[in-house]
């Protein structure tokens, strides 16, 4: 009896969910494009270029590290970190309201699981879609950085700044995987503003984006080291400036990958609990 039917080469299930979300995005991208690219751009111009001039001329100019014996310009210090922040903000934005909409408002998750897709396929497909959104936004941001002179050849074969792009995607996934997993449990959207105000903004300010974490009081410094954003910021910056060591790259990639895996494990549980009660 146990005759396995030959299976046609079909698209993997999670990729089908990803395709669905991309079809949706093709119709709705205009609404989000400005906010996702404009916000980090404003920081780049206001702080990197304007404040940066003062910083570079002042007594703190040596605080931002050195490359080949030269102090790093503030704009170059800031820009790759802002890219990591773009990754975080895109990921959290895409992991909150859209998940609640798919779960509770439009119920498109419910539609998807009535097809051959499982709850985990739907979850994984959504996280993959957010990964692509992060890649898009960070790619656009990297292009803008180049226009504003915030990119200089560095690292192996001078492609350091390009290597920062996959690092930013990994950073985004480290937020998307756990936040999507959590968002699907939410009955109301009040938790989302808590995340925006008390997670995203403190991380934006204290994860080494604007100044090295070593400037933080010793007591709260370890907190910064635990946050995925600091690992993302340090990784993107190290790669973009060519100052990263193999050890630091391994540490950051390992940490971020561990957060992604823990998030996936959690998401498998929360999606099953919510969609297959």
């Amino acid at each position, binding site marked *: 009896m146990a005759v396995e039917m030959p299976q*046609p080469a079909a698209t993997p299930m999670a990729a089908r969910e990803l395709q*669905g979300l991309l079809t949706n995005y093709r*119709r709705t991208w205009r609404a989000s494009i400005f906010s996702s690219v404009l916000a980090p751009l404003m920081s780049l111009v206001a702080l990197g270029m304007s404040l940066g001039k003062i910083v570079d001329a002042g007594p703190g100019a040596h605080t931002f590290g050195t490359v080949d014996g030269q102090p790093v310009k503030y704009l170059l210090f800031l820009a790759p970190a802002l890219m990591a922040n773009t990754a975080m903000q895109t990921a959290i934005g895409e992991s909150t309201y859209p998940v609640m909409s798919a779960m509770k408002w*439009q119920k*498109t998750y*419910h539609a998807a699981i009535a*097809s*051959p897709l499982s709850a985990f396929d739907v979850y994984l497909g959504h996280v993959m879609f957010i990964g692509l959104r992060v890649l898009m936004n960070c790619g656009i941001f990297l292009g803008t950085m180049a226009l504003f002179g915030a990119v200089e050849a560095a690292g192996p074969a001078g492609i350091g700044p390009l290597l920062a792009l996959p690092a930013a995607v990994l950073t985004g996934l480290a937020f998307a995987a756990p936040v999507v997993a959590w968002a699907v449990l939410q009955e109301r959207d009040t938790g989302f503003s808590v995340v925006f105000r008390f997670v995203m903004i403190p991380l934006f300010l204290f994860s080494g984006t604007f100044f090295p974490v070593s400037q933080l009081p010793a007591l709260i410094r370890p907190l910064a080291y635990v946050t995925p954003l600091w690992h993302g910021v340090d990784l993107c910056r190290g790669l973009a400036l060519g100052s990263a060591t193999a050890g630091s790259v391994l540490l950051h990639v390992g940490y971020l990958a561990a957060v992604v895996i823990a998030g996936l494990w959690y998401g498998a549980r929360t999606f099953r609990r919510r969609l297959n009660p």
Partner: protein
Amino acid sequence: MAQITSADAPLIKAVGLRKVFPPAKRGGEPFTAVDGVDFELRRGEVFGFLGPNGAGKSSTMRMIGCVSPISGGELTILGMDPRVDSSRIKARLGVVPQEDSLDLELRVRENLLIYGRYFGLKRAEIAERTAELLEFVQLADRAESTVEPLSGGMKRRLTIARSLINSPEILILDEPTTGLDPQARHVVWDRLFRLKQAGTTLVLTTHYMDEAEQLCDRLVVMDHGRIAAEGSPRDLIERYSTREVLEIRFAPGSGDHESALAKAEGLIGTGERGSIDRLEELPDRILLYSDDGEAALAAVHGSGITPLASLVRRSSLEDVFLHLTGRTLVD
């Protein structure tokens, strides 16, 4: 993987099927939504689950749809076990959920495209099916409209079209016409009837008696998670009700209703012409079950009851329902 291939094997077979939800709060009681039901679905029939809200219809549907794991008993769908082969089973099912789950920002055609892709269908195939299906549900001229502004009836028809994208062997409909206006309901019924004529096997839940009577070949009446009766609508009426029903009404607040109720009980089982089998009290009227409604009305008048209004009609599924569940539909 053992697959039943025999043509007359049931498409769905449930034995002692149960669904128990864990307590919502710590220390609470678990909730038994489906409490041991048996049923079989045969190829080509329309099978209905009739019952009030909370009877366990939707939980049963969700287990059949492989989106809710069974808590006990056995469930076989298309010869497969949903615990092992849910993805394969779902590939051959069509589902019209109770609440529309359409992507409102997208166009009608794009909703079908996404859904077809979920089933791994090729784009060309989906385009062909989409044209046929939109024609079938009378939405061909709306293919490029955004879904959001469509009427409730149109969204329902689109949901039905979407559920057919994979040419399912079994179509599952959970309250397909709830919330639709009468005209929209008739359009949906007409389309479902055509599907039935074309040989599609349908499973549906409803709390509309007329819907069940119009569409179902066989149905079960569910109450409190159990099956109270099973049969064709005609069988059930013959088995659980009299040929005719006399409805009598009284002026509200006059006390006539209460006194008539006491007198009418004296007419039960007299053995004379117009004898009443049983009666049901509703908030606004009393139903007297008799094989001869006109004679029962004469007997009512003879016993000194003077109703404000009276009506003699044939028994319907609603009477079966009242008899089996002892209550009106709570909605």
